[in-house]
């Protein structure tokens, strides 16, 4: 016994290193299991407030671009106003609320920290628990998927960007409505790869890819990007498709956090039918 204690004493440098390294790895794995991670992330109030004041300083430099984005968004919304439709029927409709039950709510948020050049990137937003944000909510803009909320504090939330090694998104080829899995392969933040499209689907360069709506996180038909290239590698059974993303991840300012009001209901149902008798 004494020998062991002496050995540990002599090698205390190595054992201290081992101990601290184990703590670091526990932290890493806790982060992967992201529901349970605690205060050491940029959603904590100290790091959050530094990022917020920094973003406040640099924001005005980008006002022009933000104005353009807003104008574009207003223009898109104008497509749906009553004025842009010609009324050409004389029937009277009654609008039943039971036909249109609201499924998604959107919370407007501002990006206060963002990166695109790491292999796994994260985003910090200026809305938190106080505004109704919860982990696992999706983040979108009008032309793409931004990421998924992982941690929430009172006033801030941090999220895995789509540009993250662990994020895979269910997407759909708009013309043929075939499903695939979209993921980022690192390096170029304007490009992504779509996998698992079967070879009998006819693809064209320039075809649009949209979100599938099969996930609990993102609504259907959010435009994501266009096909820039596709091929079947030797020995593979599926296309691998390169996508040009619509969204410039280096330049996102205002985003919408998606709240799925029927998530619990659907999740409970799906879990119920997947459990064996």
């Amino acid at each position, binding site marked *: 016994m004494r020998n062991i204690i002496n050995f540990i004493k002599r090698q205390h440098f190595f054992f201290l*290193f081992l101990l601290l390294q184990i703590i670091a790895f526990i932290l890493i794995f*806790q982060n992967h299991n992201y529901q349970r991670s605690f205060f050491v992330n940029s959603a904590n109030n100290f790091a959050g407030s*530094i990022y917020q004041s920094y973003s406040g300083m640099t924001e005005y430099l980008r006002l022009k671009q933000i104005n353009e984005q807003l104008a574009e968004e207003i223009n898109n919304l104008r497509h749906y106003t009553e004025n842009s439709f010609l009324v050409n029927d004389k029937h009277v409709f009654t609008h039943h609320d039971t036909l249109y039950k609201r499924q998604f709510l959107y919370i407007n948020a501002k990006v206060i920290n963002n990166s695109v050049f790491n292999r*796994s990137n994260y985003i910090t937003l200026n809305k938190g628990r106080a505004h109704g944000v919860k982990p696992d909510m999706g983040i979108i803009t009008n032309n793409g998927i931004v990421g998924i909320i992982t941690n929430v504090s009172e006033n801030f939330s941090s999220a895995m960007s789509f540009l993250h090694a662990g994020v895979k998104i269910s997407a759909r080829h708009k013309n043929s409505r075939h499903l695939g899995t979209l993921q980022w392969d690192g390096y170029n933040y304007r490009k992504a790869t779509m996998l698992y499209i079967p070879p009998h689907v006819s693809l064209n360069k320039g075809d649009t890819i949209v979100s599938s709506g099969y996930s609990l996180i993102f609504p259907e038909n959010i435009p994501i990007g266009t096909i820039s290239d596709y091929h079947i590698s030797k020995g593979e059974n599926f296309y691998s498709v390169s996508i040009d993303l619509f969204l410039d991840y280096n330049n996102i300012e205002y985003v919408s956090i998606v709240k799925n009001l029927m998530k619990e209901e659907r999740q409970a149902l799906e879990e119920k039918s997947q459990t064996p008798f």
Partner: protein
Amino acid sequence: MGQTILKYTGKLLLLVLFQVVILNQIRFSGYMTPYVYVAFILLLPLNFPKTGLLILAFILGIIMDSFSDSLGMHTSACLFMAFLKPTVINIVSGKREYGDDISPTIKNMGIRWVIFYTFLMVFLHHLFLFFIEIFSFREFFSTITRAFLSSLFSTLLLIIGYFIFEKSTR
């Protein structure tokens, strides 16, 4: 004693703020991500107590992690680097002997020693960090390339920094 602690705390905060507020915001390219905050460990005196070295590396890593959402990754890489610091100093110094409490500055050690030492330490840190970050050997060679180019860049920034700060304190 109190003064020393104050000096180290100031250094640590300055380096972390510089890394987070300036370097992390300027995006050069996917292949070059400089991390200069490790200078805090590099600049500790050569005979700094080993236990203290690991504890300081741990604290530095935790602070960096809390800023970059990489919970534990920077901590792990900093610990790895701090653990190998005595070995690297032995390798770089060869048979030369140094007195007590000497800091690894250009004035004390000479420019070649400092460049070699800085690059080796920074490369170990970056390599470990990038592999932890993707957590697989799937992109083995591109990760090594990233680590190498990023280390070159970090070393360049650090050497420029040494010149500026050593001159101003003289």
